[in-house]
């Protein structure tokens, strides 16, 4: 199998913080590779090493068969950093032409490419305005276009949809799926489990500077997720707390609060547990607004492995 990225035993320390603690990964060519992890997990640090912005203290990285420090390899990588990297006093066009020049793209090619990408992300009408007048979502999308302007083989996106409205997020997802269809490799850092689940062929779940597991989302869910998940929404917060302490204390179940009144219960056999929950609620005088049985998702995998929630 061909790999776009091979990283081995990467260690990176900032002062005393171990941002990456012996991380290894292999990203097959042509796939979308999700890096899923909470804030501070080390996603951006790993990405900055993959794109050659920073050097690891230890370990080796091979990108597209070479070193990410060599200009020839870099020209084939598209990088969207977490912090936009756009000049506020330039217009959208000017920013994009700047990066086109940096990657040696001719103005004519750049123009066509910008038109096409801007159309897909719905920002065509804003390109003449200075970036300082842009909303966060607009900046985010312009930043994605800037990363794609030279038609790179490997695209590295650091949280491309953070802070976007659901509709706009969908358009970014559409773009990522288009890229995959055209044979590109995409590395996608995110802390949205839904995003990683939907888009990735393979996911590496990161926490505290380590990759704790990796594999396809289905594989991870079936291997580490519980057989089923019951979500219960109660009418009041105090009720949720009462039910939580009962289920966890008396039945020894893994219960997580995912909202003020919402509980997420991992279980083996929902057919047996659902009646038990309803009868317990009745006895304790708690009223349930919603009760549903769900399939486990990557959030549950993360919960299972770390005991913490992914999205804070």
């Amino acid at each position: 199998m061909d790999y776009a990225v091979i990283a081995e035993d990467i260690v990176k320390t900032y002062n005393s913080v171990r941002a990456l603690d012996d991380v290894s990964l292999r990203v097959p060519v042509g796939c979308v590779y999700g890096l899923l992890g909470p804030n501070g997990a080390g996603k951006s640090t790993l990405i900055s090493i993959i794109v050659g912005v920073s050097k690891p203290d230890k370990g080796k990285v091979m990108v597209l068969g070479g070193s990410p420090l060599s200009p020839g390899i870099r020209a084939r990588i598209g990088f969207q950093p977490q912090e936009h990297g756009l000049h506020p006093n330039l217009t959208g066009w000017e920013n994009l032409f700047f990066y086109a020049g940096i990657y040696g793209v001719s103005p004519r090619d750049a123009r066509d490419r910008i038109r096409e990408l801007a159309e897909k992300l719905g920002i065509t009408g804003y390109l003449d305005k200075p970036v300082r007048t842009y909303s966060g979502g607009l900046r985010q999308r312009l930043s994605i276009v800037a990363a794609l302007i030279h038609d790179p083989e490997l695209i590295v996106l650091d949280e491309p949809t953070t802070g976007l409205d659901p509709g706009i997020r969908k358009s970014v997802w559409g773009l990522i799926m288009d890229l995959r269809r055209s044979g590109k490799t995409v590395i996608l850092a995110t802390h949205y489990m839904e995003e990683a689940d939907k888009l990735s062929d393979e996911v590496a779940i990161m926490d505290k500077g380590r990759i704790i597991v990796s594999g396809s989302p289905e594989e991870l869910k079936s291997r580490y997720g519980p057989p089923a998940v019951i979500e219960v929404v109660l009418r009041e917060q105090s009720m949720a707390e009462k039910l939580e302490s009962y289920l966890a204390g008396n039945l020894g179940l893994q219960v997580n609060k995912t909202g003020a009144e919402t509980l997420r219960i991992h279980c083996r056999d929902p057919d047996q547990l659902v009646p038990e929950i309803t009868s317990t609620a009745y006895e304790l005088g708690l009223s349930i607004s919603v009760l549903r049985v769900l399939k486990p998702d990557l959030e549950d995998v993360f919960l299972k492995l770390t005991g913490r929630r992914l999205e804070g």
Partner: protein
Amino acid sequence: MNWRAVKAFIVRDVKTMFRDKAALFWVVAWPIIWILMTAYVFVPPGAGHVITLSVGVVNNDHSVAPFNGTYLVDLMNNTMINGKHLFNVEMINDSVRLKELLLKGRLDAGIIIPDGFGVNATYGTGRLIVLIRADNPSTKQIYEGIITGFLQGVSRRLSSVKINVSLAYISKYMPTANATMSLDRIKQYLIGIAFPINASVEEVVPESVGSRPAIIGWYTLGAIGMMFLYTGLLIGSAMIVREKELGTLKRLLASPSSGPELLIGKTLGGIIVLVVSALIALFVGIGVAGARIYWSPLNPVDWLVPVFMLAAAIMSIGMGLVLSLASRTSKGASSLSTALGLLFTFTAGIWFPKEWLPGWMRIFAENFPFTWAIDGIRDIVVYQYGLPDILPLFVKSVVAAIAIFVAGATIYRIQIRRYAEK
């Protein structure tokens, strides 16, 4: 080298520089204000012209003699230089009042003519009392010089008259039979007593700096030099930190143009900004303030001027790159460049002429490479040096520019490497 990337840096940096109000102040507003203020405050429109002194005269002389106080006052009133009166004489009744007016600054000088002055001056030596307003040391010297110069002139004329009177007397009454000295010889002898030395004073001022337009030309170049220093230091010292703050550095460092393209592109962008601002300043200096600058495309030496300018720009940006070691934020870089710029204003001999500096400070001004480049420009466009005279300074400036830029580029590379390792 990817020249498309270099061009991209230039286009972006020039655009953003001219869109940034704070930057515009330094590269455009500041030199213009500086030049105009200098032209009208420092080198007022009267500069270089004949000064008319306001002199109060107390004439107590009642002598009946061919030469007397009244005659002296008439002479003062009628002395003109280049069609301009040298003195504006005001008759004052008494010396107390005269001193009072001098102390108030209403008069520049005063002359008290004692009684008997006419008789004494005609037949012997006439005494005069001259008062000079001395609140400003440099104008004091000028006033004193003018008055003593005038009085010496008057004395010489009196001597001539006296010699002629004496000779007439001698030729009429002295026996000539046994004389060993001829009359002509005696005449020469007497003239020699009156004028032992006849120094002919000739002012040697380069044609180009003697006049107000030339002085303004000198200062216009000084303002451009200072602008180069302030802005070039800032461009160099903020080169990396500014990209970091904008969030663009990561992107650039991940790009294939993170090496020489970034440094060369941003330096060239800075040079273009400096040169455009210099041209604006020259335009204002020549067109508005009335600076006279000699530059002709037909004169080969004059083509060294753009090279000197380039060297100055490279030196200032290179020094800024060295300073970037100490600049953690662009605000810090800006404060540091301004502080140093201010220091150089006084010490580098670019704004304040070297001749004004105390000896030990002159050592710095004379060995500061940036000053060489500005001096080189002045030597050509103000003093009209020829090639052989300018060549040593030219070589020194170019070598220094290269050396400083190499030092700056080394610091720059260390900073970039440090960023990747941090």
